[in-house]
């Protein structure tokens, strides 16, 4: 479990990207528009002011980001359900809470990007109608969480090519990597091959 926790701990890559994000934002503030600031914060790289006159492109990007936020809210709620279930061991609970924290950070970053583009981020639902009756032990909870994380990887993989603003694609790829690490750790805890293949969609 210690190994798993080490894998699950906030990685140097994420920290590095966060630092780079701040640095790049400060360096490029003069080069981007105010509305793009949130995008720059989210992506941490490149010029974020890359929209042309087509407002449909902006609204489509906002829509995709909001779909992502909706899924992230669901993940936060699912981990909360698991944490409060009483079914998780202390060590697993620690990892679950950490992963939940990552999803909350994703929501914050995505929401900032949406607001910087003039949109409004969606709120969490009051009820997710989770299949609680199927969650009777720790394995069930972990399988449920792993399914959500695996789905999240696919969702981000599908969204990356369709963002008009390529900085958002970059940001989504960063989040995708985090979701994939969650999925791998959960699979490992479940006794499954954490990385079942060379390719993934």
């Amino acid at each position, binding site marked *: 479990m210690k190994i798993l926790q080490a894998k699950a701990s906030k990685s140097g890559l994420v920290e590095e990207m966060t630092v780079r994000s701040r640095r790049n934002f400060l360096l490029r503030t003069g080069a981007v528009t105010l509305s793009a600031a949130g995008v720059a914060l989210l992506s941490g790289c490149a010029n974020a002011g890359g929209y042309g006159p087509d407002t*449909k492109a902006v609204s*489509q990007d906002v*829509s*995709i980001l*909001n*779909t992502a936020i*909706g*899924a992230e809210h*669901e993940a936060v709620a699912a981990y909360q359900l698991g944490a409060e279930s009483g079914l998780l061991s202390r060590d697993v609970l620690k990892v679950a809470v950490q992963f939940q924290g990552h999803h909350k950070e994703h929501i914050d970053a995505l929401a900032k990007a949406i607001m910087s583009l003039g949109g409004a981020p969606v709120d969490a639902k009051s009820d*997710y*109608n989770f*299949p609680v009756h199927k969650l009777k032990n720790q394995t069930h909870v972990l399988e449920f969480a792993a*399914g*959500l994380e*695996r*789905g*999240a*990887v*696919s*969702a*981000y993989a*599908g*969204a*990356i*090519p*369709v963002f008009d603003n390529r900085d958002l694609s970059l940001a989504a790829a960063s989040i995708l990597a985090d979701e994939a690490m969650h999925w791998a750790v959960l699979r490992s805890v479940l006794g499954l091959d954490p990385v079942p293949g060379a390719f993934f*969609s």
Partner: protein
Amino acid sequence: MFRTCLPAVVCLLGGMTVQASTPVPAAGDAARGKAVYAQCLGCHSPDRHRTGPKHCGLIGRKSGTASGYEYSKAMQQANVVWSAQTLDHFLFAPLSFIPGTKMGVAGIKNAKSRRDLIAYLIVINEQPGCD
């Protein structure tokens, strides 16, 4: 499989049917489709609305009409009836088929994967307890 178990395609966009120019997809493998469906599980479920709408009852339903789910205006106005053929078009490139849909993904470009997925969607269409 699709030829025998699905009704004729009814796809109306802007009042015009698109069925004449596009053939009905060949049969898919539902078992393989279940594996493809894992890609959908980030947002969808067979039996409950999530970020995306549930999939039971999808076949034969008019777009944007599942009760209890908040659709985009684009989906509500798309005037598409979901069938093997319309799903094949939508799944290939959702944002091109229905611009403005919340399903902001590139789509499934492999025709066989789409066929398999649609075969699985047909299986879960009749999920018990789906209202």
